[in-house]
């Protein structure tokens, strides 16, 4: 029986390219990120001042924070998608980034006038921002889950969470081109909330789909 299986498996052997996991995951993310960006453009449209926005610090803060979380989530996903995978540094670095952002937000708020405060914290879109991020993240989450099904995570729930953070970061990054908010506290609260919702979604999906 077992000999038969071994014969069958070795007849089925196909070469595996070096860094096959990285290629597969990166391919899934890039492809689905294009879908997310297309969805952002057709559904929400880029912010009205998109031509001048790249001159502002806040544009790049949003750009950098979301992209960094996406990359950190991807690094964690790659580590956790292996049977012998453990990782801590992406989580720590992510939390450090959030802490840094909060420090910047407090400094920004400290120099703001009383009328500016609600604009910097709640803006005009605090209630819709997390949900728009979730929607834009869905294609990325779906694609990474499909890729992850071919991997072998030691802990499917945790690997799903990491994939969710990566998808959430990518979706939030796509959303940052449509979002005209300028508060660092807004970014720290509502973007992070949206990304965490996608992370939780990924954890649930991982538990259900990533068993092997």
């Amino acid at each position, binding site marked *: 029986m077992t*000999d038969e299986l071994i014969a069958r498996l070795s007849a089925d052997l196909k070469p*595996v390219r070096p860094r096959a*996991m990285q290629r597969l995951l990166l391919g899934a993310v890039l492809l689905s990120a294009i879908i997310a960006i297309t969805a952002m453009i057709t559904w929400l449209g880029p912010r009205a001042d998109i031509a001048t926005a790249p001159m502002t610090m806040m544009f790049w803060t949003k750009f950098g924070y979301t992209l960094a979380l996406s990359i950190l989530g991807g690094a964690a996903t790659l580590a956790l998608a292996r049977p012998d995978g453990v990782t801590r540094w992406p989580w720590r670095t992510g939390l450090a980034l959030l802490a840094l952002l909060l420090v910047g937000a407090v400094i920004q708020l400290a120099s703001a006038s009383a009328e500016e405060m609600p604009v910097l914290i709640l803006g005009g879109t605090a209630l819709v921002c997390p949900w728009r991020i979730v929607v834009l993240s869905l294609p990325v989450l779906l694609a990474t889950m499909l890729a992850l099904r*071919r*991997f072998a995570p030691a802990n499917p729930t945790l690997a799903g969470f990491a994939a969710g953070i990566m998808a959430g970061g990518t979706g939030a990054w796509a959303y940052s081109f449509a979002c005209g908010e300028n508060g660092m506290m807004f970014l720290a609260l509502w973007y992070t909330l949206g990304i965490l919702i996608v992370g939780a979604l990924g954890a649930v999906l991982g538990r259900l789909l990533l*068993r092997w």
Partner: protein
Amino acid sequence: MQTDSTELRLRNLMLASLDGDAAAYRTLLAELGTHLRPYFTRRLTPAFAAQAEDLVQETLLAIHTRRMTYDRTRPLTAWLHAVAHHKFVDHVRRQSIRLTVPLDDDAPFFAHDDNADALARRDLSVVLDTMPARTGDLIRRTRIDGVSVAEAAAAHGMSETAAKVSIHRGLRSLVARFGGGEK
């Protein structure tokens, strides 16, 4: 612990396999089979030792379908161990689920009291023992064990009618003794 020479040899086989060397792969899988069999047999309780072969096959299959997740720069034995461990835990978990009662068989919690049943059964057997042996046995069979009158009658070599009369008389005498008078 695996010795370094084992790690080195298996890893070389694995690296060749990942590059598509079917002969190396076959050697690797065969050798892994001989390592995995005692590994699982040791971990299973003797009653389940027969499942070791299933686990070996499941693990070899997982090694095959998930071979992409082996990082060529890291020790192979650690990766193999993690796969085997995962398959073992998964197996035990599924086994324990299978050993429980399906949910729809789950009768209401208080529907059945074993203790009260046992007490009633003991009283009943004391009472039945005071009766003529054949009558008591007929009643026990037909009214407690749920056997048909015809079968109970056959067991005592009597006709069905005679058995019915005997049971009827026996029950009437029981009512007379324990019925607690007119109701």
